[in-house]
């Protein structure tokens, strides 16, 4: 005997503007099996929920239908309310009168009739609902952090300090990321490596963190709380258990003319190398693509000079598999190179640099030991032009967005130059100055007022080279677009922040969404910045969008908090809306005939084979079995099953049929 309660929400005006809610409630009250029907302005509010709870208790309701917004919005809200009133939450259903009705139609009688039909369908469905209980799934309390820059480091430390296990995977030979390449950071002008390297060491020494450098994620399977990650440990050609980091090999390596990635091509490195002196781990790897031994079969000097015999030439890449409960993506970003700009020379001018290259010049551990010198002739530039917004905010170049950090680092670069070259002249061509962080505006004013940097509002149309100088042709728009021509010794382009080259591939490996620029997609731009749409996978740092260090660190701690929250339970509660193969008494045991079409159809590999055995241990029949931990409730198996032996809890064949027939039977 059904006693359904129907609750129609006005949703403020969202529903009541086009649907006559009172009429819907009145009609619902007349439906067979409906014990109580009412309407209210905001069902999801406290008084609204109280209304439902009281009705359940007072009227002894056996089922609830809430005619309101999308279940994706408030199904958990109403199910929780029912649960609190003592009604199994899965006896509560929502009829979508908003997204499916009021929001897509005009105000008229037909719209109200449709709303009534929608309610009728769900009433008939709820009559067939069975109470269900949430499924508990164990959680592996180990996090995988992909990326060893400041974002990954912060996230890993936060998770590890909360007592949980972390595996960090970094594709370069050392952790540190782009922050390790910077000279000084805005707005404090702290030495970047000085504030970063202690954290890098902390990561390496932390008992809860397992660090894999020169490694990449190969494969990710599973789901929240139960991932399986396959990691490729690229062959370093050096045994880190034997290597002491003495550096004899890098000193003696005869192949010294490989452009250094860490120095953005401004300096050289050897084939066996550590990327920078403060690398963590401070042990080298061999770049097989450029090593004389691997390319030509000769040399082996490093093996000869190594005091501990740590060089191992012929080890292949290794693969390891780890059980993981949550993933944090912290893979960072990249900056455009100068060859992207036809109007600035197609990258052929040695003294036209990117901001990151300028960082390496300014850095004390850089190719010029911190002196600003022209890569072409080593001379100190007397006049530098900085061009902000190179590529960014430019729809014609395919990059309509703002790269956020460039206004600040351009001011910083100009300041550093003025500090190092007192009588130098610096010019910044800008469109706007974006200095929105704490102490940021004051920092930029310092550059203009204290350090004498000349700010010109206008864009640079062309740069060409003449007699060793660079003719920069721009405009001064605050003086009526007056043409400005500057003969510069060096030009620094604040090139756009873009996604890393492997970002798309990585996103596809992990089934994580990404946008047109290959930045990873957050679950909600305002309210869920560190989550993705894939449960259990979190985001932080510049891999989501260009951002500065404080934001990155904040986001990393946020992602870590989500992981720690997830791991704070021993089990994960899953919705019981999964497929189940029917079981009955002997001699039938199940109407499943063991064809396993469902197993082939299942996109999540959630169907297993179960042997039904007699008392003597012999196998009577083999039937399908759904793994409740893996099933995502898509229903494909139910559609495939010829014997109708498999059905969906919460969306059973009977329930679906009842909904459709409710419409047919007038």
């Amino acid at each position, binding site marked *: 005997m059904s006693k359904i309660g129907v609750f129609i929400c006005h949703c403020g005006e969202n529903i009541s503007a086009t649907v006559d809610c009172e009429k819907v409630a009145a009609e619902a009250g007349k439906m067979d099996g409906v014990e109580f029907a009412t309407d209210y302005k905001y069902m999801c509010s406290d008084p609204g929920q109280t209304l439902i709870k009281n009705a359940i208790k007072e009227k002894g309701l056996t089922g609830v239908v809430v005619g309101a917004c999308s279940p994706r919005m408030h199904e958990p809200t109403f199910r929780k309310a029912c649960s609190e009133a003592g009604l199994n939450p899965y006896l509560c259903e929502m009829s979508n009168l908003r997204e499916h009705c009021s929001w897509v139609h005009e105000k008229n009688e037909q719209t109200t009739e449709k709303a009534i039909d929608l309610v009728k369908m769900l009433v008939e469905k709820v009559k067939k609902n069975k109470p269900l209980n949430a499924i508990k799934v164990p959680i592996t309390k180990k996090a995988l952090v992909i990326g060893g820059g400041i974002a990954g480091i912060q996230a890993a430390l936060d998770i590890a300090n909360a007592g949980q296990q972390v595996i960090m995977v970094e594709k370069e030979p050392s952790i540190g990321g782009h922050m390790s390449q910077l000279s000084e950071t805005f707005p404090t002008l702290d030495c970047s490596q000085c504030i970063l390297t202690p954290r890098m060491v902390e990561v390496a020494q932390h008992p809860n963190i397992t660090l894999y450098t020169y490694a990449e994620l190969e494969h990710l399977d599973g789901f929240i709380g139960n991932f399986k990650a396959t990691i490729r440990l690229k062959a370093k050609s050096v045994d880190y258990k034997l290597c002491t980091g003495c550096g004899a090999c890098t000193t003696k390596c005869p192949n010294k003319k490989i452009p250094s990635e860490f120095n953005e091509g401004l300096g050289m490195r050897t084939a066996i190398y550590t990327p920078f002196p403060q690398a963590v781990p401070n042990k080298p790897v061999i770049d097989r693509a450029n090593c004389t031994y691997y390319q030509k079969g000769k040399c082996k000097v490093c093996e000869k000079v190594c005091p501990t015999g740590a060089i191992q030439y012929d080890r292949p890449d290794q693969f390891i598999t780890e059980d993981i409960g949550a993933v944090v993506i912290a893979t960072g970003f990249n900056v455009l190179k100068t060859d992207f700009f*036809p109007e600035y020379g197609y990258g052929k001018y040695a003294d036209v640099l990117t901001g990151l290259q300028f960082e390496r010049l300014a850095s004390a551990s850089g190719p010029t030991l911190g002196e600003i010198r022209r890569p072409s002739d080593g001379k100190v530039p007397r006049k530098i032009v900085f061009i902000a917004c190179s590529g960014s905010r430019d729809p014609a170049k395919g990059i309509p967005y703002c790269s956020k950090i460039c206004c600040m680092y351009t001011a910083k670069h100009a300041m550093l130059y003025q500090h190092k070259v007192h009588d130098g002249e610096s010019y910044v061509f800008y469109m706007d100055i974006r200095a929105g962080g704490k102490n940021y505006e004051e920092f930029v004013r310092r550059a203009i007022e204290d350090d004498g940097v000349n700010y010109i509002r206008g864009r640079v149309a*062309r740069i*060409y080279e003449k*007699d060793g100088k660079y003719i920069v042709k721009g405009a001064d728009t605050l003086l009526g677009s007056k043409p400005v021509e500057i003969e510069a010794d060096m030009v620094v382009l604040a090139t756009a922040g873009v996604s890393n080259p492997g970002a798309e591939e990585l996103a596809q490996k992990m089934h994580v969404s990404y946008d047109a620029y290959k930045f990873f997609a957050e679950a909600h731009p305002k309210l869920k910045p560190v989550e993705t749409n894939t449960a259990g996978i979190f985001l932080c740092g510049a891999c989501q969008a260009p951002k500065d260090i404080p934001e990155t660190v904040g986001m990393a701690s946020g992602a870590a908090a989500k992981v720690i929250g997830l791991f704070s339970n021993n089990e994960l509660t899953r919705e019981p809306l999964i497929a189940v193969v029917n079981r009955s008494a002997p001699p039938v045991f199940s109407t499943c005939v063991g064809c396993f079409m469902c197993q082939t159809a299942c996109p999540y590999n959630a169907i297993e084979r179960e042997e039904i055995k007699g008392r003597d241990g012999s196998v009577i029949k083999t039937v399908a079995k759904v793994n409740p931990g893996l099933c995502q409730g898509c229903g494909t198996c139910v559609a495939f099953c010829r014997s109708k032996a498999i059905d969906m809890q919460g969306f059973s064949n009977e329930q679906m049929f009842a909904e459709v027939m409710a419409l047919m039977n007038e």
Partner: protein
Amino acid sequence: MKKLGFYPGCSLKGSSSEYAQSVLAVAKAFDIELEEINDWNCCGATAAHNMNRELALSLSARILALAEKQGMTEVVVPCAACYNRLTVTQHELNKDEALKQRVCDIIEMPVSGSLQILNVMQLIDKYVADRLEEKVTTPFGHKVACYYGCLLVRPHNILQFDRLEDPQSMDILMKRSGAEPIEWGFKTECCGAGFSVSKTEVVAKLSGNIVKDAADRGAEAIIVACPMCQSNLDMRRPQINEYLKQKIDIPVIYITQAIGLAVGLSPKEVGLQKHFVPVEIG
């Protein structure tokens, strides 16, 4: 003998007759016959598109229609402005069916919009190709500054020719003819164009900067593929020299003249004597 359509345009029949002469001479040297479009009209150049869009499109469309009517599939257009107008017109008409219909009604002729319009560099790349090196008897062993001007490579998305900044098509051809093209900064800077007549001092300044940069970098000749460019850099040299307060002797020659010399044609055959600044090289 390869036969292609040929649209000289007004300049090549008048003040830049030596350009036409050298194009035809070079074509002949490579067994290419250029057949002039019958009853062609002015492409409209800058004047038409500044005054009336339909007029501008119709003038150029009539040329396209005539070429198609005369059975031509490819037309060589040496003048950069004509090349630009014809290509842009064909593109505009192909983009907008209603506009095409309107223009066809005005000119009372159909236009299919499938004509291949080639500038001089494209002609040589396509129909001379490797034969160029074989025929070079007197390599043009000089340092040259290749000047492209405004119209040869812009707008890039319509012309789809060479590259927008620092184009290379003329440089490559000159190199293949034995010359040493130099890197310089004014390849696509404006020469002053039509101000040659109305405000010559503008041309003196703009063309002056072009000539000076070429001279500073040691160019012995400026190579052009446009009658307007040639005229401003050459005929206006006295005004340029006055603006620069210095006398610069570098000749301005058409690419077909330079290539013509390289493959053994005489200076007279390519019309070098018609230039204002004496051409004493090659």
